[in-house]
């Protein structure tokens, strides 16, 4: 892949701007490595907390016409067990970029999980203050600037690697939360997590998800995510990672023009498979060549020019 695609996020050098989004695969070293082998510039793990969680009962996923609804309920083996997967990912000097997504039910838990996973070999942490379907964590924290400040400060106090904050779109003003996170020390923000949503079966007149309410991802949320990235870019000076309904190189370029330095891909893997990383990077590369840009950095935020 050409050097045009190289980009740096808060000191993390990536061979290309695509990442595996949190929550997708990411429970095992082998599946994370598989995403890298298929061309991802970095992988973000499943969100990991201090203790093991089984998540919600099925149905945890509903396919709707415009996207995908999920309420997994943050299943994860707990930081101690998951540290083993990160160490296995690192075996034989495997250098690829791995970002540990962490969540907690308090700032303290965020900090503890983050330090365990950084210790195990993660290059950075992404704070999940945006999962829309688990009480007392995720977006319940991410909707409160005060709590976001506390979590970011606490994590920054214990890890010496980049801290990314993944933001929820389920707020009146995402810019305010982004600014708060950056002031508290966040090295980067990722936008967006899923949009709170639900689906009801008309035959049985019942909500389909076991948890009733979940998060919407896929094509339906892309314009919302592009708007969020665009607004955040105007307000903060840290790199932004775009996420939400990206399924091809055009979508990825749109996010970068809005201000994203990298993009995360999740739902598209269901239809496109892991080959989506290579097809997106190839597409971005030929876009850059055709438009005469020497580096992918040149298009980040380009739509903001006056």
């Amino acid at each position, binding site marked *: 892949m050409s050097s045009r695609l190289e980009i740096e996020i808060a000191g993390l050098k990536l061979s290309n701007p695509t990442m595996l989004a949190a*929550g*997708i*695969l*990411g*429970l*095992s070293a*082998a*599946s994370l*490595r*598989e995403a890298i082998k298929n061309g991802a510039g970095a992988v973000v793990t*499943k969100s990991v907390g201090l203790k*093991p*969680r*089984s*998540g919600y*009962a*099925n*149905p*945890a*996923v509903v*396919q709707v016409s415009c996207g*995908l609804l*999920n309420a*997994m309920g943050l*299943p*994860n*083996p*707990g930081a101690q*067990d*998951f540290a083993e997967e990160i160490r296995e990912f690192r075996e034989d000097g495997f250098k690829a970029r791995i970002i540990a997504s962490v969540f907690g039910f308090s700032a303290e838990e965020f900090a503890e999980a983050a330090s365990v996973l950084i210790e195990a070999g993660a290059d950075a942490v992404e704070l999940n203050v945006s999962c829309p379907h688990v009480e007392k964590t995720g977006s319940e924290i991410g909707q409160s600037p005060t709590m976001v400040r506390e979590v970011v400060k606490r994590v920054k106090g214990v890890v010496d690697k980049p801290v990314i904050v993944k933001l929820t779109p389920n707020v009146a003003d995402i810019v305010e939360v982004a600014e708060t996170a950056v002031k508290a020390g966040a090295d980067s923000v990722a936008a967006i997590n899923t949009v709170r949503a639900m689906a009801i*079966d008309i*035959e*049985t007149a*019942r909500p*389909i998800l*076991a948890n009733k309410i979940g998060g919407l991802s896929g094509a339906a949320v892309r314009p919302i995510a592009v708007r969020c990235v665009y607004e955040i870019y105007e307000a903060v000076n840290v790199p932004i990672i775009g996420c939400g309904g990206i399924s091809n190189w055009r979508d990825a370029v749109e996010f970068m023009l809005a201000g994203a330095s990298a993009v995360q891909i*999740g*739902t598209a*893997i*269901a239809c496109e*498979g892991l080959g989506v990383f290579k097809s997106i990077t190839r597409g971005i590369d030929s876009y850059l060549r055709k438009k005469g840009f020497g580096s992918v950095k040149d298009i980040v935020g380009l739509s903001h020019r006056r």
Partner: protein
Amino acid sequence: MKISTVQDETSSVKSFAFHDRFCANAKPGQFVMIWIPSVDEVPMSLSALQPDKSQAAITVESVGEATKALHKMKAGDTIGVRGPFGNSYAIAKAHNVMIVGGGTGLASLMPLTERLARGKNKITFLMGAKTRNDLLFLNRINELLTKVKGRVIATTEDGSYGLEGLVTAPAEKMLEKGEKFDMIYACGPEQMMHKMFLLAEKFNIPFQASLERFMRCAIGLCGTCVIGKYRVCQDGPIFSGQQLREVKDEFGHFLRDFDGRKTTV
């Protein structure tokens, strides 16, 4: 979707048929996610494919909360069906196959056997269960194999029907005797499939097995069902001997629980 018929197979196993064009035209080995409203959603192999009737069926043992709830349902009751998902059994080009099924693993082998019986295949069908009463599809298989060159060998753990012991024993005996097969298909408890995999490796016979893992999304995203680099819901559920060699540290040894932690098979 409405259940069209419910059929008792054994004292603890029932088949549920439903009308769905996509499932009726599924390939042998594919599975569906069955939603029992307000209870759970579980992966189930399709045990009958009837494109002419636009009908398919699943065969379910009453073992947990979801399957117990399903067993209480009757024709006309509503279930949700997502799918069909996953890959399918590769149909052997050569014509002398061994099929080994245990317990409800026989479900996914039925559409395969029907397909193979339509070709001019020689079929050696080995089926195992705990007792005579637990032997699934005995009549259906016997009837199928009257149409082709075939034989059925049944085993029960208590000896109440056929040979006493595990289904892998007669399989091993045949292979030791020097009988040749072009393909071995297996579906059932993982220890059984693992044993058959080792035999296929030893005697250098192509092998396919249908794996079972905890599942959530069924579309290759959530990572719940991973084995090595593979996702059972998308890259499987059918795996070849060659693929199983790549995941031999996991296959037959451990699987991941819903929280991602490893548990013994």
